[in-house]
């Protein structure tokens, strides 16, 4: 079953073309790793998949629904973990998670929140204001948010940055669990080793064009 289908997607800022005629399909339960040089448009593509931007041309279908016409339905199943952690500094970890879930019309019990925080290893910091969190802790809190949200499509923008060894292990374990549930994952990353552990397919985005990669390609030094 196809989870994400992009048909001839282009994106321009004004007259500046960033993405050229991209077509791709990602199946349910599949993890896709997206590589590319800085400024190639990886983040833009992820943001289009997250319905944050509209494509200038082309069509995007997520779980069989048009991503623009049925935005609100699609967004219930989507989650993007981006560079900014989407956390309010003045609230503590638990409050942040409750608010983030409330916006998705979900109300997890206190126990579920605690379990999620423990799973990512920051259970001890539940009552601490996020202002005092380190970058890695914020990334882990974002992971806890994903755990509570049960997305059917998870989009990750550079998930391994700021995480320590344990954090990266937790991340990959979580991704694998999510894939087993039948969700799909798309991650933009520079880390070939860590992403190879979970990715089923990969591609590289250069000059707005997407080129698929095989496992052999991933082993060589020069992707672009």
């Amino acid at each position, binding site marked *: 079953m196809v989870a994400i289908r992009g048909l001839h997607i282009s994106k*321009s*800022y*004004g*007259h*500046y*073309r960033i993405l050229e005629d991209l077509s791709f399909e990602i199946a349910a339960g599949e993890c896709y790793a997206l590589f590319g*040089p800085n*400024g190639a448009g990886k983040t833009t593509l992820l943001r289009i998949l997250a319905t944050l*931007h*509209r494509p*200038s041309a082309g069509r995007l279908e997520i779980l069989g629904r048009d991503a623009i016409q049925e935005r609100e339905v699609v967004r219930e199943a989507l989650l993007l973990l981006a560079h900014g952690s989407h956390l309010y500094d003045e609230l503590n970890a638990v409050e942040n998670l409750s608010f983030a879930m409330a916006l998705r019309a979900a109300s997890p019990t206190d126990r579920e929140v605690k379990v999620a925080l423990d799973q990512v290893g920051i259970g001890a910091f539940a009552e601490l204001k996020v202002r005092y969190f380190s970058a890695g802790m914020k990334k882990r809190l974002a992971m806890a948010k994903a755990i509570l949200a049960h997305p059917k499509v998870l989009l990750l923008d550079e998930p391994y940055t700021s995480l320590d060894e344990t954090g990266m292990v937790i991340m990959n374990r979580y991704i694998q669990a999510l894939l087993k549930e039948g969700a799909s994952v798309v991650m933009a990353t520079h880390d070939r080793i860590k992403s190879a552990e979970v990715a089923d397919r990969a591609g590289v985005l*250069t*000059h707005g064009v997407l080129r698929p990669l095989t496992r052999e390609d991933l082993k060589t*030094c*020069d992707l672009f």
Partner: protein
Amino acid sequence: MLNTIIRKLQRYKGWFGAAGGLCLGLGLYYGLVASPPDYYQGEVVRIMYVHVPLAHTSLLAYTVLFLGSLWYLWTRDPVVDNLCHAAAGLSVFFTAVALITGSIWAKPTWNTWWTWDARLVSFAVLFLILAGYLMLRTFIDDPEREARYAAVLAIVGFIDLPIVHFSVEWWRTLHQPLSISMRGVSISKEILIPLVLMGIGFSILFVYMLIVRTQMLYLSSLLNAKKGRLLSQVHLAKVEP
């Protein structure tokens, strides 16, 4: 479809320019030379031949801005956004000149540079709304967001302007220190012809300027796009494996 109309129309811009110039020329001749001076106001009334059509044209430009903004939100075509930007720039220019010429006319006629008449205040507010619109466009970097936000501002502003006019009108009837009639000029045929000619002339001239300015904005955004692409390619080319 309407998009191709704009693109086709720009071939004929020279004709618009010429027609506008002709109307204005005729209008100015009739207005400045052939028509009689007003009984009460003397030669000063001739400013009206510029002031009134300018005011109408600036409102025309504002309406074009409003409709263009709606059109942009419907089609999301960047050329339509260039059109809106052009219309706003022209509208602010016409409004400013209308206000200044009105002020110049007012001093000898009413012995004051400014009065709190509903129309004047509405025009001053219009000027401020347009200035705010242009400032907003300057301060947003992302072209797609800039176009969207500007369109929303134009629509909200357009809906508000009649309300502004009404509220000032009511306020004026309360606090009127002296009763000044805007209709200081009675319309006779010799005055009507140049006025209408100037009105038509300015409107046609506006269309011409709109086409030219839209082209300018379109080309400059194309240039920026090419520059951006060029720079990114240079950056990527420098990366050594």
